[in-house]
């Protein structure tokens, strides 16, 4: 079954590029909007399987896209939204994750260069998973690395946690770190033990839990 996707992007070339890219990978583009108010209306009326949203949109060119997405997700909890931006902020990542319903992502615009990974991320968000840009994760980890409880993790465990937060599956992490899948599983259970998180079967929910935990740890 093809997935229904909504695109919100004000730069014409980029909007057309995204439409072509997603159509080529079997998505149905239900709408391509340019402004914040249009985005909110489209999100609530069309309820797309997944939306790709630029943070900065007309009319104010501030954070229209993000605010429209958050407003729509308050109406429809768990409405899948992948946010794109020229820069990434931990603050925005936290706001997207705050409702705890997952099915959200936050990527730099240049991640579109790698179409395979990008389309993979879109699918992951549509499936209810969480995809965070490597740069957000790097900031999360370096910003707090001196503090408990992340300080308890070994370097390797930190790499695994980073890959998990980016949205990689166990096998993808294993490929990336040149380890076996069972070794990765061991690392992950060790991470959860050290972070005192209850284990669960759902990979994406675990990523969400990790991020929520980081979120809470930094605020206290």
């Amino acid at each position: 079954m093809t997935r229904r996707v909504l695109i919100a992007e004000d730069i014409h070339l980029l909007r057309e590029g995204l439409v072509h890219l997603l159509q080529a990978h079997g998505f149905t583009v239900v709408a391509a909007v340019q402004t914040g108010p249009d985005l909110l209306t489209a999100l609530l009326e069309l309820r797309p399987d997944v939306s790709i949203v630029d943070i900065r949109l007309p009319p104010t060119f501030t954070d229209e896209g993000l605010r429209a997405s958050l407003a729509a997700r308050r109406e429809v909890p768990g409405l899948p939204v992948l946010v794109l931006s020229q820069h990434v902020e931990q603050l925005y990542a936290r706001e997207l994750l705050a409702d705890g319903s997952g099915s959200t992502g936050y990527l730099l615009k240049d991640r579109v260069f790698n179409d395979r990974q990008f389309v993979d991320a879109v699918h992951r968000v549509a499936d209810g998973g969480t995809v965070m840009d490597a740069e957000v994760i790097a900031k999360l980890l370096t910003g707090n690395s001196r503090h408990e409880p992340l300080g308890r993790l070994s370097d390797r465990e930190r790499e695994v946690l980073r890959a998990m937060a980016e949205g990689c599956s166990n096998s993808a992490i294993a490929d990336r770190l040149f380890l076996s899948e069972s070794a990765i599983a061991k690392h992950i259970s060790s991470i959860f033990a050290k972070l005192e998180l209850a284990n669960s079967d759902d990979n994406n929910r675990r990523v969400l839990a990790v991020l929520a935990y980081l979120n809470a740890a930094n605020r206290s």
Partner: protein
Amino acid sequence: MVRQRARGIALLGLILIEVPLLALAAVALLQASGIGLIPLFPPAVLLVRRMAAQTRRHCTQWCGITIAEPYDPEPPHPEPTDDGWYRYRRTLFRSPRLPAWLARLGWMLRDPATWRDLAWLGLDPLVKLALAPGLLLAPARTLPAYGRWAALLLGPTTARRLAGEVQRLNTARVRAGDTQTAEMRRIERDLHDGIQGRLVALGMAAATAEKLVDSSPGAAKALLGQVRGGTAEALAELRRVVRGISPPVLTERGLADALRALALDSPLRVRVDVTLPGPLPAPVESAVYFAVSELLTNAAKYAGAGHAAVEIRHDGTALHVHVRDDGSGGADPARGTGLHGIERRLAAFDGTSTVTSPPGGPTSVTLTVPDRRSQRAGRVPRWETTLVVVCWSLAWLPLFTQGLGAAAAKLAGAEHSRWLLPLRASGIWQWPMIAGMVAAGIAMYLTAVWLPVRRPRGSPRSAT
């Protein structure tokens, strides 16, 4: 309350010094203008200035009203010319003593503040006597009223204040221009050294790939992969430069959220507490953002701090930014270019910074930026000063002489008088005219008290 009453009594007690001083000044002035005994004039002026300075201090400490010094700068000591003479205007002197004295005399005579001081000294005992019941019974309300009266004549004139303002603005403008040019240069260098070079390399790689695409598609494909990677690197570089010019989150969310984002990215644990009534002017937000960013970087890099706190408030007249960390201290604005840079940036908005950083820590930095939007009002117009002075100096005439004095004379049996205006009128009009005179006198006193008091506290406080 007791302390304020003591202050009220002290102010009244000063009349005992003011009256002899006034007499002395009057004698000196009369001699100087009448029989040409000018040498007495400068010492008398200096004595009056000391009295005025004392009153300015009382106004600051007791009345909560700061009065700036209104005097012109003292003339410099005369320097000898090449041939050893001393010059004052067009005359040459053998010794420096006479030209120095003449310069000082001219300085005092030409300064309007000298004459305003004298006017104040003449009227102050009257004002204090009129305010005496208030100073004794309700000093908390009357002390500020007295302060506003003193500020009318002891503060700088509009012309003097504007001259000072022009000089200050000139310095600030030159400095702002320098800072801006330096910023532009830095941005130009960043773009030139980083992204421009990368784009040239990308263009060359793309051109090579174009040539190779038919002959060896494999090599062309590898090159295009490099082009893609290079584009991402150029974008990352551009993002870094953009952050240095204007952080996107500041544009998108304003100062409070931008500082929260900054705190999240900092290696320190930073508590951010922002209380603002509304958005600030964009240049101020930007300056404060970069200042806090610099301070947090310093705290992490040099002071080895673990925690920091950023607190921002707006008290209606100024923005206060307070940054504390628990690091090892020892920050010195004279040595570090970072702190100096912050001062330069803030100077464009008349902002100031105070650094407390003893060796061993902790470091605490306070930045204050006055809000120019709230300082437009609050200047005392000239007509108001004139009216208050006229009321204070003439109100006794209708009230005591022509009003109460005429009433006393009439009760004593006098029917006509050359000097008392009401008693020159015909019989039935005499009492109404006396009542009118008394009313006019009271109205003048009330006007003199009410005009300075009616302004809201705070607005004319700075250098009225």
